[in-house]
Structures are given as structure tokens and as C-alpha cells.
């Protein structure tokens, strides 16, 4: 097909540019959040993430002067650097929140009680006073400065290791893992046996059963919420991990059986019939031949089910509950959006913790995912 386009370089360029535009459109949202998660809260609100690499001119939060006092010739002085030597270029400063840009760098401001404050462009200050400053509240300095870009891992440290009550991402991470792994493993075996029967055993009603499963593929799980909650309460497991494992298993089975059956039907007939002739039981054929040969399909489904259970919100809220210690990552994220919607440094880091594992699985096993998608939708 290349030869068609190859004749028209202009068209080829148009194709390259359009693909680039599409890719950028699809990737930039994630990049925005990723960049934000490495910036400090102050930086996030003072400029858009696309400006993260340039120095930023912005009003800085007030800094209270601190330092050790030096007495010389009856004058007490404190000097130091406002930014602790981290850099930054002050364009204006002030000592009152009403006039934060009253002075230019290098000026000396006369404060009450004979205090004199000088602030240089690079943040160096010196404060002098006729009386000892030891017991006094030292003045605050408001600066407008351009600060160099700064990236930090502090946001991740905060959300993972020192969270506020009810916002423990670390705990939620463990909860999600606890939900997702059994909910991925259990349906596979159950489905594999059923798929083998549907693919390779002759019995009356087989076509009807396949149709039944195809029908169940699209039943919205919203319908299952009320009856299953009642059922789980009735058998006494209520809300909890057992409840959500069973729910995910039930909801994942139609896709599992469908995918595996489609794959197993395509396995070479000779192998299975030879094994039957050689006297292998159906159980042996399944364990020794079918399961190893179906590995790609099993992997496809496992990835689907893992992504789905990891990313699910509704089933977790209904069957696991919304208590703080049982929140999964998605539930935790929704709570954060409600309670701390403006704190992007927390929100972005939490979001990235929650999408890191699926992204890892996605990029490392994309091949199986694509194969599974194709088997599930097109024949």
C-alpha cells in the first residue's frame, strides 16, 4: 500500500502530521497530570503545567524572617537568604500583604520600632534593629520573584506514606490488589472447563448455551446490584472481600467463556482426536493439551479481567462498601476529588499511583490484549 502514497509526498506529509496531531491529543492529557504530580503545590497553582520548564514570575507565599542575631556596635542584625540559597530573582518585595510590591530589590524599608530591612535581588536580606530581636515576632516578607523550575517526589511520598486520615493511598493500593488478583484467577479455571465443553464436546443444547452466553455478555451489571446484595446478605457474607470476589467472578465469566471457546474451537482437531484414540480421559486432554495450548487466550482474558477489576468503581462501592479502610484506589480517588478537588499536587500523585499498575500491565502485555480484543469482537 506504500506505493500509493509514495507517489505523493505532500499527502505522506499530511498523514505524518495528522497522526502526530492525533497522538499528541491523546497523550497530552496524561502528560499534563504526570508533570503536575512532580511539581509543588505552589508551582501548580502559579502556572500551567506546560510552563513547568520555564522560570516563573509569581508572587511567592509570605516568608517570615528567621536567623541568628548578631550584635555589633549596639545594633542588632540578622542576615541570610529568603529562599535558603535555592535561587530565584526578586523583582519586587514588601512587608505588608496590602502592598506586597512596595519596594524594589536593593531598597531599604523602614519598619516600626526602628527596624530596617534590606532585600537584594537574589533573596539576601539583612534586618537591623536598635534593640534586641530575640523576643520579637520578626516581620514577614512578600516577594514577587521568578523561581527556577523545580521538580519533587514529595507529592508521592506524601500520598503513599504520610496521608491524612481516610486518604491512605497505600492502604487503598493493597485493597485493590487484594480485590483484583483472586477476582482474576478464579474465573479463568471455571471458564476454561466450560469453554472446553462448549468447544469440543458434542451434546444436545450446545448451540443454545453458546447463545445464552453471548446474550449474557451484554447484560448491564447494574441489573445485578439489587438481587445480589440481597442474596449476599441472605447467605450471610454481606459486604466484604468474599462478596466482591464472587461478584467479579460472576460478571467476568461470560467474556471468559466466550473468549476461550472462540480460541479453543480453532485448535487443531487431530491432536485432540489422537489423544482420545490413545485412551486419554477428557480430564487429561484438558489439563495436558488444551490448557497449555490455550495460553495466549488465557493471558488475554487475565489481562482484561485484571484491568477491569483494578479500574472498577461501581462493583467495589456496592459489594465492598465505602468504609475508609476498605476503599479501593478508584473509590479513594473519587473521595479525594470531592474533598480536596483543588489540591492538584495530592490529586495528581494519587491518580498516578492508581493508574501506574494498569499502564505497566498494558505496555508489557499489549500483544495479548490486542489478540484478546480481536478474538472477542471479530470472527
Amino acid at each position, binding site marked *: 500500500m506504500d506505493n500509493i502514497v509514495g507517489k505523493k509526498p505532500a499527502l505522506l506529509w499530511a498523514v505524518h502530521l495528522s497522526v502526530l496531531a492525533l497522538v499528541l491529543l*491523546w497523550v497530552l492529557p496524561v502528560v499534563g497530570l504526570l508533570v503536575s504530580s512532580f511539581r509543588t503545590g505552589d508551582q501548580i497553582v502559579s502556572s500551567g503545567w506546560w510552563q513547568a520548564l520555564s522560570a516563573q514570575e509569581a508572587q511567592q507565599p509570605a516568608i517570615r524572617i528567621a536567623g541568628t542575631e548578631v550584635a555589633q556596635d549596639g545594633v542588632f542584625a540578622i542576615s541570610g537568604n529568603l529562599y535558603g540559597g535555592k535561587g530565584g530573582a526578586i523583582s519586587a518585595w514588601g512587608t505588608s500583604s496590602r502592598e506586597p510590591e512596595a519596594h524594589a530589590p536593593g531598597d531599604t524599608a523602614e519598619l516600626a520600632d526602628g527596624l530596617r530591612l534590606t532585600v537584594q535581588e537574589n533573596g539576601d536580606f539583612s534586618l537591623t534593629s536598635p534593640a534586641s530581636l530575640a523576643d520579637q515576632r520578626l516581620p514577614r516578607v512578600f516577594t514577587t520573584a521568578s523561581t527556577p523550575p523545580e521538580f519533587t517526589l514529595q507529592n508521592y511520598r506524601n500520598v503513599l506514606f504520610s496521608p491524612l486520615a481516610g486518604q491512605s493511598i497505600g492502604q487503598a493500593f493493597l485493597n485493590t490488589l487484594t480485590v483484583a488478583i483472586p477476582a482474576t484467577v478464579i474465573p479463568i479455571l471455571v471458564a476454561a472447563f466450560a469453554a472446553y465443553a462448549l468447544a469440543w*464436546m458434542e451434546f444436545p443444547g450446545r448451540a443454545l448455551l453458546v447463545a445464552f*452466553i453471548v446474550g449474557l455478555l451484554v447484560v448491564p451489571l447494574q441489573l445485578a446490584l439489587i438481587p445480589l446484595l440481597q442474596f449476599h446478605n441472605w447467605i450471610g457474607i454481606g459486604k466484604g472481600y468474599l462478596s466482591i470476589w464472587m461478584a467479579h467472578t460472576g460478571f467476568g465469566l461470560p467474556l471468559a467463556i466466550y473468549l476461550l471457546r472462540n480460541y479453543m474451537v480453532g485448535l487443531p482437531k487431530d491432536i485432540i482426536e489422537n489423544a482420545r484414540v490413545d485412551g486419554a480421559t477428557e480430564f487429561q486432554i484438558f489439563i495436558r493439551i488444551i490448557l497449555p495450548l490455550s495460553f495466549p487466550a488465557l493471558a488475554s482474558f487475565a489481562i482484561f479481567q485484571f484491568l477491569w477489576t483494578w479500574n472498577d468503581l461501581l462493583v467495589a*462501592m456496592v459489594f465492598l462498601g465505602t468504609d475508609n479502610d476498605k476503599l479501593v484506589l478508584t473509590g479513594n480517588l473519587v473521595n479525594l476529588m470531592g474533598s480536596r478537588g483543588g489540591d492538584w499536587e495530592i490529586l495528581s500523585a494519587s*491518580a498516578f499511583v492508581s493508574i501506574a499498575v494498569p499502564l505497566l500491565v498494558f505496555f508489557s502485555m499489549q500483544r495479548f490484549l490486542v489478540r484478546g480484543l480481536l478474538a472477542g469482537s471479530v470472527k
Partner: protein
Amino acid sequence: MHPALQAILVILGGVGGCVGYFYASNLILDKVLFPARGPQAGRNINRANLVRPWLFLAPALAALTLYLAYPVFATFWRSLLNQAGQFVGLANYAKMAHEPKFTEALGNNLLWLIVVPAAATGFGLLAAQLTDRIRWGNLAKSLIFMPMAISFVGASVIFKLIYDTREANLPQIGILNALWLKAEGGIGSVLILQLLPFALVVSLIAGFAYLGWLVLRPLWRRRDETAWIRVGRVIGAAVAVFLVIELASWAYGIATADLPYGQPQAWLQIPYWNNFFLMAVLIWIQTGFAMVILSAALRGVPEDTIEAAVLDGANPFQIFFRIKVPQIVGTIVVVWTTITITVLKVFDIVYAMTNGQWETQVLANYMYDKLFRAFDWGMGAAAAMVIMALVTPILVWNVWNARREMR
């Protein structure tokens, strides 16, 4: 017991239990019930083989019936009961029909149903076709496919940052508002924000009108079609007419709008349009899915049909629309219906971003509201049945297709 420990036990118990069940049940069948020896060996083997499929199927069938089939009927029955559990017939449905929030949810859902599958399939087809021809196509595909791995909630956070709004005197950190504030009402912004969208919408109107005409025309040209196909044609044409009218009102709105330049917009709080900002999240996620499947279908188009077209002097656009697309129409329909089902179940995005405020309610979130905030299970069940009713045509179509393929 710690949940993680419990999880490990459940995995071991579940896997062990499964293998144990299948092994033991097969053993009992072969050695105890119908042993393949003695005078009736032949009859026994046949009998065992009659029973065996059901041994293999039993656990799966039990789970499917209990977790998916039975709930459909149980939910239907629950929708006929009131809060106290007394039978009230269709009263819940009647009450729901009179709730403005429900009609809003239904209307929004229809909007979602039209826009999201169309946009995701369209972008997917575009991406599939374009990436097929370039060397870094696989990398591009994998990046466009990536959002599939991101949860709806994660995607909501990502897009919330895009739509973020702050007061006019503060720096904007949402990229949409930053771009919006770049427009100041001069010729350039009128060109980009009004003339360009106007031209796009008008061309869409023309496209849908032509499509509707194509769908409707065989109604009087061809007399041999079955009643079902004719009904389908009328419905398709009605959708096209609806879209044309809707888009015409857009075109009028764009042409006459007095855009509030210089004021940051709270995108998620502008009624009607905020639906589209929510839909963008789902389109972003689903496009990759459409692209992967359509790309495989495009590669399956026989090379000789394309070569023949090239020899006849067709240009690339003609090859795409006249040769390739007609050959993958079946796959396009499959992709379209799959995304339609996802749309009907969409809950997380609306729940996380607006929770149905500012007229963005959808059925799934409405149902959750009824169930877990109003604790009115009858109404919640009725809302679930409405979702089921919307899914049913696709369910029937899928089952019909599966039956046809089995034969």
C-alpha cells in the same frame, strides 16, 4: 484475618477447589457410576460421555445463572414493588416518567448514545487508516490505545485538570481555559472559534442529510426488502433527520453567538455543552479500542481489490471510502455496538466529575442515586430495567448473529 492473607487462601482454595472438583467428579463418573468395564462397558462409556459436558459446565452455568440471568428477572420483579415491598404494578415507572431528573438522564443518555460511538468509531477508523501507512504507526497506535488501561476515574481526574477553572485574575492551570483566554475577539478568534466550527457543522449537516437520503432511498426503489429492514431504514432516516435539526440549531447558535471573550469558563457547569465535555473522556478512552479492531479489519481487506482500484485510477480517498470501508462494514457495526453498550453502562465518569449536577445526569448514575442515596429500591430497579430495555435490541441482534454463525 488480614484481607491479603484471606486473598491468598481464596486463590489457593479456589484453584484447588476447581481442579479438585473437576478431577473428582470425572473420577467418580468414570470409575464408580459408569465404569468402562464389565458386560455393559460400551453402554457405560456412552452414558458417561453424555453426562460429562454437564460436569464441565456446571460451576460456570451455576455462577452465570445466579449472577447474571436470575438478577434480570429479580430486578424486574423488584421494579414492580414499592419501597415497603408491596406490589404496585407499574407505579414506579409512572413516577419515574414524571421526574425531571429521569427525563434529563434519558435525554442525556440518548445524546451519549449518538455522539460517543460515532466519534470513537470515527476517530478509530481515522487513526487505523493513517497509522497503517507509516513507519512509526505501531508506536502511534500503542499511544492512542493507552487510555484503555486507565480507569474511568483516573481519566476523570486527568480531564478535570484540563477543564480546571480559576478566577480571571489568577493564572489558569487548565489548558482549555488557558487556550480560551488567548482568544480576545479579534479577527483570528472569530475565524477559529466561529467560522471554522460553523463550516465543520455545516459540512456535518450535509453529510448526515446525504447519509439519511442514502438510507431512505431504497424504500421506494426496492420492493423486495423485508418489513424489518424497511422499519430499520425509517428509524435510521429519523435519526439522521434528528441530527440534522440538532446540528442546524448548533450552526445557528455558533453564527449568532456573542462569545464571552476574556472570561474564564467553568466548562463542566455550562448546561448541555458540559455533556460533551464528559463525553470527551469516554471518546478518549474508547477510540483506541475501535482503532485496534478496525486496523485489523483494514489489513484483512484483500489486496487485489485495492490494486484493481489503483489500476482504474482511484485516488486514496476513493480507495478508502469506496473500496475499504464497504468491505469492513460488518466490523464497524460490531465496534459501534460494543461501544454503545459501554456508553449505556457509563457511570464512573459522571459520578466522579459532576455527579449529575448541572444537567449532566445519566441513567446509570440516576439509578445509583435512587439505590444508595434515596434508598428507593423500587425506583432503582425500574431505572435498571430502562437500561436493560435499551440494551435488549443489541442483545437480540448479537444472539441472532451467534446462532447464525453456529450453523
